């Protein structure tokens, strides 16, 4: 980039920007006075009806299914909850199974993956590889193509999902929970806390979200519900100091594990990401040691999830992903792309609002759920 051009651009930019406030003021004035009429919505109502009915009817049956299985263990829980989602695509699947291997089948598989939020780019890669294998092996039935697809995807989910709860002697293991706003960081902490207090560990929660209103209160309630201790600062306090305080308190009280909450932040906000990097550095000081940095991702997230994972991994060296809200109709296919492209393994999966609705990630079930098996 040559300097003259750069400077010219700059000057123009600055100049333009300096003027903009006026332009905006006048624009708002205009808008305030000229009311736009709301157009009556009459758009495409018909389009969605059949899908919708299908959706509702399947919900009913599934709902009762879930009720029956209230006492299900983690794995069963995953199975039943996820089954809701899979009915939504089962029609496409049936098509594929019935199909012979032709051009259309690839398109259908592509659509299936895209609908599961796996993403265009990753989908293309998967399908290209699948096509090569299928053609080499001379597979001719839709069902077999699907099986091949599943095993291929499974082979790409081979990350190490172990969670580290032990720090070297004299240090307190700290888990940092990071992610964009509203993905369920605080709730996930509550559930992880429950899980380890159940195992007999002494857990301390650090209310590092000092930004969002009442975030500390929310964590406080989780601490109470999961028999964990809590360290909090005042609203607007420096999150690094709150977490450091927590690590010192944990060391003094001989706590086994510190779970540190952080404020939700969009990954493209440079300052906030720097703040987070600082939080991680400070948490890593004695007596604490950061053992896991868990990126929480909401299953409804689309292609943006990849960009979230990339930025958070850059800033704080993420060690794993927690996939939340998988009990809804979304499939969370984006975590496949995240694991494949960035090598970040999904470690935990959130399946509901109860404090025990958090299970280890199981690749088999996940892939199975992406396609369902009717």
């Amino acid at each position, binding site marked *: 980039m040559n*300097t003259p051009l750069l400077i010219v651009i*700059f000057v123009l930019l600055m100049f333009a920007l300096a003027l903009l406030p*006026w332009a905006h003021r006048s624009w708002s004035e205009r808008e305030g006075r000229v009311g736009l009429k709301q157009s009556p919505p009459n758009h495409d109502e018909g389009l969605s009806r059949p899908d919708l009915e299908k959706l509702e009817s399947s919900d009913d049956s599934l709902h009762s299914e879930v009720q029956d299985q209230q006492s299900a263990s983690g794995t069963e829980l995953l199975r039943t909850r996820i089954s809701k989602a899979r009915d939504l695509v089962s029609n496409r699947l049936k098509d594929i199974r019935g199909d012979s291997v032709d051009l259309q089948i690839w398109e259908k598989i592509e659509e299936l993956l*895209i609908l*599961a939020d796996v993403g265009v780019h990753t989908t293309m890669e998967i399908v290209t590889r699948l096509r090569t294998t299928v053609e080499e092996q001379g597979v001719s039935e839709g069902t077999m193509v699907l099986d091949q697809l599943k095993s291929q995807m499974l082979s790409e989910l081979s990350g190490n999902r172990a969670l580290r709860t032990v720090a070297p002697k004299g240090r307190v293991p700290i888990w940092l929970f990071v992610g964009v706003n509203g993905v369920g960081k605080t709730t996930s902490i509550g559930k992880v806390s429950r899980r380890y207090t159940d195992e007999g560990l002494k857990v301390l929660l650090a209310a590092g979200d000092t930004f969002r209103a009442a975030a500390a209160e929310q964590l406080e309630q989780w601490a109470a519900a999961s028999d964990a201790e809590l360290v909090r600062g005042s609203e607007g306090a420096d999150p690094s100091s709150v977490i450091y305080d927590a690590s010192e308190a944990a060391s003094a009280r001989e706590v086994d594990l510190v779970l540190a909450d952080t404020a939700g932040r969009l990954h493209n906000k440079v300052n906030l990401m720097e703040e987070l990097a600082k939080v991680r550095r400070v948490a890593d000081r004695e007596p604490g040691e950061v053992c896991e940095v868990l990126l929480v991702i909401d299953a409804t997230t689309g292609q943006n999830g990849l960009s979230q994972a990339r930025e958070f991994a850059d800033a704080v060296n993420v060690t794993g992903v927690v996939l939340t809200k998988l009990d809804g109709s979304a499939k969370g296919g984006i975590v496949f792309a995240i694991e494949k492209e960035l090598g970040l393994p999904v470690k935990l999966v959130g399946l509901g609002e109860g404090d025990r609705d958090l299970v280890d990630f199981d690749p088999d079930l996940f892939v199975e759920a992406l396609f369902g098996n009717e």
Partner: protein
Amino acid sequence: MFQSLTDRFDGILNRLRGKGRLTEDDISEATREIRLALLEADVHLNVVQGFIERTRERCLSADVSESLTPGQQVVKIVNEELTEILGGESFQVTYSSKSPTVVLMAGLQGSGKTTSSAKLARWFKSQGRNPLLVAADLQRPAAVDQLQTLAKQIDVPVFTAPEGALEAARDGLFEAKQTGRDVLIVDTAGRLTVDNALMDEIAGISDAVEPDYTFLVVDAMTGQDAVNTAEVFHATLELDAVILTKLDGDARGGAALSVKEVVGRPVAFASTGEKLQDFDQFHPDRMAERILGMGDVLTLIEKAEEVFEQEAAEAATQRLLEGTFTLDDFVDQLRQVRQMGDLSSIVSMMPGVPKEVKDADVDEREIDRVEAIVLSMTPEERINPDVVDGSRRARIAKGSGTTPTQVSNLLKQFKEMRKAMKGLAGLGSKSKGRKSKTKKGKKGKKNSTRGGNSRVQPKETAKIPKLDIDDLDLTLPGR
């Protein structure tokens, strides 16, 4: 947002623009790429397919208009289809004749309902209304606290009832009537569409308060599932519009397009930041233009407003136009621009910026260097760069760790720029309006609202950004 969608459309349409005639293959190729771009932006598969079909059909059957090349025609068609999908005109809130106007907020967990409720309350307040917030989210721990904390910041009362969400909503309505509040905003718990018990609950709340508006809060980062969510909520509640949140991320927000297309309800409001004031009505036409690479001046303005101190900026501009802009002002502005965030993203929002400039990798150190040079000058030199001679130049170069050539380059650029700006200022008043329709409209209104008093400057200058950016590729001086 919509960043990479913009890039993709830019590339695709640029290739078509150059062509004198379009073959069916050209159109197929273009629509195929548009399909990919939309899918990458999380637009729902079915919506993409519909969009592509319509666009394709229209492109193939389009009457050849005399004034447009086929390429331009495609751009026009895509623009129209896109605006259509996004919702055409802005949503307008009208108030119920029977006070209060009731607004019900619904959505998945974590989509931003509580924050949006408070933001909406603030917005109503800014419209001269007296809102009452109802905290009917009794599911999530501390959700009521959160709403109360936010409400305190904007000085709006919160009503809640511990017995249940339905009671809270019903009694909240009564409370609003009693206390003469004219807008009631009911914040509800996040719920999954597959959870029938909770969907029944919100349907019950809706029956009890008979909302004038039911808003679905949708996270801009949502993927393909946005459509399922919207459909089920729409079937349960009869949505009126959508509130799109977290638009300040880099998500492409295809969810907004999908929801509008599938349930036929527009995006009414969009939330673009963490602060309560980062919330405003959504303008579909602005978005469509931005997606098509026509820039998004208005968003740029909003960003600038956050950073620039109005008075200082006005003063600097005044000096720039008079030709008395100093290097101090220059550095000052430079710093503020950098505060606005990533330079390339700012550039991308400006209309008419050539592709090469957009794609250029801006080296931030280059700017540090410019700053260093200016800071190595004496105050006198900064005000009047003409005094810089050979020995001063050598001193400045030494002080800033640059070479004398770099110093004189900067000074030359600065002087030329200053001269050009002065020239533009004179030009501005008799400027020809050769920008797109909407922009012309803005200008026209602006002139009429500001009137012809002594504050001539702003009126003129408001046009200049458009002019100078156009001039960019023609190299500034001598225009």
